């Protein structure tokens, strides 16, 4: 089929590096002499370049419909296009691709006037991830009672779809406008810290504001810290923080699915 050539051929690793350069960066002068096929193999290379670009831009745009609503399709396509060139996926599961996009958006000069944009996109990313989670059977307070002698050392696993976001802008208000299709003609957003809890499963999502100390407490638990450390963080922010009541609320909200204790449950 293909006739061998006498040209010196680089090793496969180098050939793949050159193809990667052609596909992602559009620089194909070094790879084209190695190719055969049709009257113009360089033109054929464009099929792969276009597929890389279009499939990943589409994946990003699909994950950030609210952000697109906010900045408009042309700006979104331009930003997504730049993102896929600068940040190729690190793994084949495209559902995981795009986590860095909100930070990337914040650095876009053309979008610099929208200081809240990164935080809105961060919230949207967390909602997308929460929506494809599944929830587990929550534990009740009785499960914790078995560990009461060493409660400070206990770690709790939260629902898989549980996420936390501290934002310097009240982007949850904006997200509610988007989700309810209730955008007013004009809307002014003022900077204000909000601490958000996001939870979801099987397509359903919710997001709620928390007090700062409660946010620190719950976030510390959700990121794998012991109850003792979570309590310390909350008490540093608010010395009147009621750890027992906060723990009860966390459990009663159905967010605890597993207890990990270095000592195991107290024997009966």
């Amino acid at each position, binding site marked *: 089929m293909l006739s061998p050539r006498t*040209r010196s051929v680089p090793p496969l690793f180098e050939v793949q590096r050159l193809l990667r350069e052609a596909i992602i960066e559009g620089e194909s002068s070094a790879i084209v002499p190695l190719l055969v096929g049709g009257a113009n193999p360089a033109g054929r290379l464009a099929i792969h370049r276009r597929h890389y670009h279009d499939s990943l831009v589409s994946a990003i745009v699909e994950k950030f419909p609210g952000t697109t609503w906010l900045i408009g399709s042309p700006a979104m396509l331009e930003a997504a296009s730049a993102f896929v060139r600068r940040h190729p996926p690190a793994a084949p599961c495209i559902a995981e691709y795009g986590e860095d996009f909100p930070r990337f958006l914040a650095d876009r000069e053309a979008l610099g006037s929208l200081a809240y944009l990164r935080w809105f996109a961060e919230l949207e990313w967390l909602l997308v991830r929460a929506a494809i989670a599944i929830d587990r059977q929550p534990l009740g307070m009785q499960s914790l009672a078995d560990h009461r002698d060493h409660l400070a050392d206990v770690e709790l696993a939260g629902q898989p779809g549980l996420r936390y976001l501290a934002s310097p802008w009240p982007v949850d208000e904006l997200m509610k406008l988007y989700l309810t299709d209730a955008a007013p003609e004009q809307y002014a957003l003022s900077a204000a810290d909000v601490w958000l809890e996001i939870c979801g499963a099987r397509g359903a999502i919710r997001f709620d504001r928390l007090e700062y100390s409660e946010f620190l407490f719950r976030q510390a638990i959700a990121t794998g810290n012991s109850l003792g450390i979570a309590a310390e963080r909350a008490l540093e922010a608010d010395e009147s923080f009621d750890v027992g009541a906060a723990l009860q609320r966390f459990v009663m909200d159905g967010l605890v699915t597993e207890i990990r204790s270095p000592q195991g449950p107290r024997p009966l």
Partner: protein
Amino acid sequence: MTTVSNGRAGSGTGVGLRLPHIQEVVATRPPARWLEIHPENFIANPHGAELLLEARRHYPISVHTVGVSIGCAGGVDRVHLRRVRALVDRLDPFLVSGHLAWSTHQGEYLNDLLPLPYDEKTLRLLATHIDEVQDGLGRPYVVENPSSYFGFGNSTMSEVEFLSELVARTGCRLLCDVSNVHISAHNMDYDPYRYIDGVPADAVAEMHLGGFTAEPDEANPGADVLVDTHAARVAESVWTLYEHAVRRFGSTPTLIEWDHELPPFATLLAEAKRADQVMARALAADPLCAAAV
């Protein structure tokens, strides 16, 4: 290497199950003979995986990877391979397949199936990688012929010779994508029927049929380049080639692939029904095949 799967084997023509159809399939159980999935769509999607496991109760499943980059010069992505293995263990599919291609380079995933030069060095590398994949999955790997838009001037063997050697060296099996044969033959100017005739028939475990899109070939006015878009019905010329392939390979599980501009599930079932009819006609016309059936 473990080679036994308890998964129910698919027969006749199955359809590709994509995420937009999964709720409907689980809820209404349409009469598909078997389903093929891309593990990459489910590994990072727990809700999708949960629905897939429900579908698994009612349909034989085949797993078709798009991210196990056996042609990557830097080595197989072992992290991804472990994730695929975990899903395969839960599904116990009747086949696990992937592509004669590469997709990753130094930690970057290019979201495409990219071509390889066909020479002895590449062959040795791929044989090593297929051994690693088969060990990692605990079962045979089924390797699909790619759709090609260009090749490499330093190739010293044909694609069929390359695939045949891989089978001989690794014991892997083959997935003959009949549409890819048609596309590559058109784009690279060779005879698709000779290609089919050269494939080691005993190694063929599955066939694929998918739609393509014809685009103007920029450097060749009036000519088309065929692009493997999986966004259309199977072309008439591919049905004819498929009939020839069935006569050569015998009764083989066949898949209707449709990934983009996804139609209603019923359209996929109609394409699958046509494939079953073509297969029945081809087998009936061949006394040896008919006797085997």
